[in-house]
């Protein structure tokens, strides 16, 4: 769908990154503006601020009521959206080619002349507060929150969760300030695609953002997780045992990153080809799924593993996970597993180029993690160069034991057999 020639990334002297993709399919323009402030930057007593503030952007402007703004967007055939991610916030617009100038002007107005009524703020706050009721009923969420609190420590951005207390404390003026500061500090990157050339895309953008400040989007590296407490949480009424495991891995810019990715894929990230899926689902039938994910943020890498299992199998599942982890770390992966994983990584690469939006998001992410476009384009060559001994050597640098495991069970007795290294924890204690 998209070839390399259609993709261009340019970094200007301020560090601002412009990613453009020439594409006639779909027949519309896509614009995504990235600001280097996300949910992880929320003050600890105002967790939820980024999400609440960003949700209010695009409701109305100084010149247009909510109804007028939406009508204007509809008439132009444009869709506006915004999303607060961990490290960044993204404000996006999709619009039809025949109205591009008007749409871009509207986009600028939304950013520069943002406004919202107190009742918009109050209602959004009520919605967020109500959402907690649903979240707190979800044992998967509770288990994850506790795993993070243990692994990263309570003051780490990745442990701090928005809570009813922090959301209630947020004032309308703080949301206004957040929006103003974010826009004033300036975006760090833009993604633009459309049925015109790279230069035309960039010209369209620069024409409509005159006066904007741009930044390089660098944010401080996050500290690594070092916790080692296993937690057991009791939630009455659930019908399974939930498990969430966290362990430190190398970040994206480390020389062992690709090697370790391959190894972790074999252990738990690879869906039906992973060892854990084979043992726990296929052989034992104890779970519907294992979700392993290699996560990277600025200067930080961690691997998360989660599953929910038949309660009778909970102790056995933990034993299998630990056993397979030990085997992975001490013996590595086999030659055939190495070839399979490597081929999968290489063969999957073309799929990335099939979906424009996903490709744009991926390339932006790579940029912020320090990868150049050339490094992205030569990904396959780098995977090709990996050797089996290299992967196993990287796996051997993993921690000797899994540092943090959190489990959630319906009652304490249903966790008999999991060992007594778990600290019984109140589910609200995070």
């Amino acid at each position, binding site marked *: *769908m*998209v070839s390399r020639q259609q993709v261009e990334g340019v970094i200007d002297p301020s560090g601002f990154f412009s990613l453009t993709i020439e594409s006639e*399919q*779909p*027949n*519309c323009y*896509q614009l995504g503006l990235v600001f280097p402030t996300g949910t992880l930057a929320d003050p600890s007593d105002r967790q939820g601020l980024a999400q609440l503030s960003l949700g209010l952007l695009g409701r109305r402007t100084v010149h247009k009521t*909510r*109804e007028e703004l*939406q*009508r204007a967007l*509809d*008439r*132009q*055939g444009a*869709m506006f959206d915004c999303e607060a991610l961990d490290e960044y916030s993204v404000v996006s617009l*999709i*619009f*039809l080619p025949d109205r591009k100038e008007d749409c871009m002007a509207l986009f600028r107005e939304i950013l520069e002349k943002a406004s919202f009524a107190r*009742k918009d703020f109050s*209602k959004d706050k009520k*919605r967020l507060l*109500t959402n907690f*009721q*649903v979240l707190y*009923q*979800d*044992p998967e969420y509770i288990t994850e929150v506790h795993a993070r609190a243990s692994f990263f420590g309570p003051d780490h951005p990745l442990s701090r969760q928005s809570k009813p207390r922090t959301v209630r404390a947020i004032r309308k003026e703080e949301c206004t300030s957040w929006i103003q500061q974010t826009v004033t500090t300036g975006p760090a990157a833009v993604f633009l695609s459309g049925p015109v050339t790279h230069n035309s895309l960039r010209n369209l953008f620069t024409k409509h953002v005159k006066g904007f400040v741009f930044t390089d989007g660098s944010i401080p590296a996050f500290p690594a997780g070092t916790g080692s407490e296993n937690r057991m949480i009791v939630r009455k009424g*659930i*019908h*399974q045992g939930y498990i969430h495991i966290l362990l430190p891995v190398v970040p994206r810019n480390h020389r062992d990153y690709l090697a370790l990715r391959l190894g972790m894929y074999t252990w738990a990230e690879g*869906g*039906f*080809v992973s060892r854990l899926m*084979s043992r726990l*689902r*296929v*052989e*034992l*039938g*104890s*779970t*519907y799924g294992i979700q392993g994910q290699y996560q990277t943020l600025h200067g930080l890498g961690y691997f998360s593993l989660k599953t*929910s*299992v*038949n309660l009778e199998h909970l102790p056995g599942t933990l034993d299998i996970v630990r056993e397979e982890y030990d085997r992975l770390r001490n013996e590595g992966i086999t030659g055939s597993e190495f070839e*399979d994983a490597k*081929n*999968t990584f*290489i*063969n*999957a*690469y*073309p*799929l990335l*180029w*099939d*979906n*424009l*939006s996903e490709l744009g998001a991926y390339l932006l992410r790579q940029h912020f993690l320090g990868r150049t476009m050339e490094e992205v384009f030569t990904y396959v060559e780098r995977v090709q160069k990996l050797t089996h001994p290299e992967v196993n050597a990287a796996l051997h640098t993993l921690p000797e034991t899994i540092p943090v495991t959190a489990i959630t069970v319906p009652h304490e007795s249903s966790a008999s057999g999991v060992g007594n290294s778990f600290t019984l924890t109140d589910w609200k204690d995070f």
Partner: protein
Amino acid sequence: MKLHEFRLSNGLKVFHLHDPSATAACVQVWYRVGCAHEDPDKRGIAHLLEHMMFKGTERIAPEEHARRVQKLGGQSNAFTTEDVTVYVQTLPAKHWTTPLELEADRMCGLRFPEDHFTRERAVVVEEYNERILNQPITRTLQSVRRKLFNGHPYAVDPAGILEHVKAFTRADIIRFYRKYYHPGNAVVVLAGPMPEAAAEEKVRELFSPLLSGETQTPPIPAFPDSMPATIRSASPVKVNFYTRVYALPRKPEHYHRLQMLNLLLGDGENALLRRKVEDKRMGVLHAGSFHYSTQGGDLFFLYAAVLPFMGFARTLRDIHGIMEGDLPCTPSDLDEIKGRVRISLASQLTGTEKRANRLGETVVLRDSPDAFFTDDAAFANITLRDLEEAFSELKHAPATEIKLKARWFPGNR
């Protein structure tokens, strides 16, 4: 892009969306059988069969299907709905023949090894635990659904009834498979750059030897007259939920009209329910609508989520106010909705798999392969009169009111 369609003598229909610019290929098989076709004492069997389809044939070992696709850099998945069961493979375009071979093999050649069946049934039970029993909201919705459809096949969702699932035997599932999984009851959907002639040749080579079965899935009965007027239940959270469900018969003109009506009434920042119900009162957290098209008919939902201190009465009055009047839509409103539809349609079709999904929906669920290319124009041609007719039909359709009341608030009425 071009659509190429053909049919084999055993009844298999094939639709190939040829896109020379794609770097991926998507191969899907849509079986015209879903949970609504299950026997009343075998609810959940279609979903369990979906799982068993990955457990091997004479030629392919258990789990090998997904592994082969993954090793080629692809992804394989499947889902079961009320009306269909769909198997999807998306992978780099050069490997497009592999999923076709795998699908042809398992269409009639599944083995059902006993040990794998027993374990996979246990997996399905855990899936039920995870997605339903551990989630109070889903449990509540499941219970409401059964009351709403009141004996109709749609009363039970694809997850089935847990006691039935636990009791399924290998013979049960083989029976279901042989009855409904055959070329005459299936549609192959392809999308990607593979040349038309080569794709047709490959499909004919692989699927022509398969025998057509005897059973075509019976039509889904229309929604029952006995759908209740009101359903009351407890809300699993401290929020009252109100839903009004309209049941309309299946008609070709409904799709576009009801989609537009949905945008007007409840989907979008300027939607009527948003402006005149949600924005009107602080206690209304959300108000909106959605349209769900099924083989049994069209369902149109109006909903509101309300804080308990408000009760239901005022919200109902506001909704009645909208529904009992004339269609509140000017020509300018209609143009704006059409603008939204245009951009929505344009942006949806990014990626080969999304295109294949959409093609499958238009071909199998809407019986209209051309709709993939003509939906744009069809929406653009909707008139105010069309919407007025649809609105009138909606207002007079049988409706059920569902009230989920938060339990903990003393003054909640």
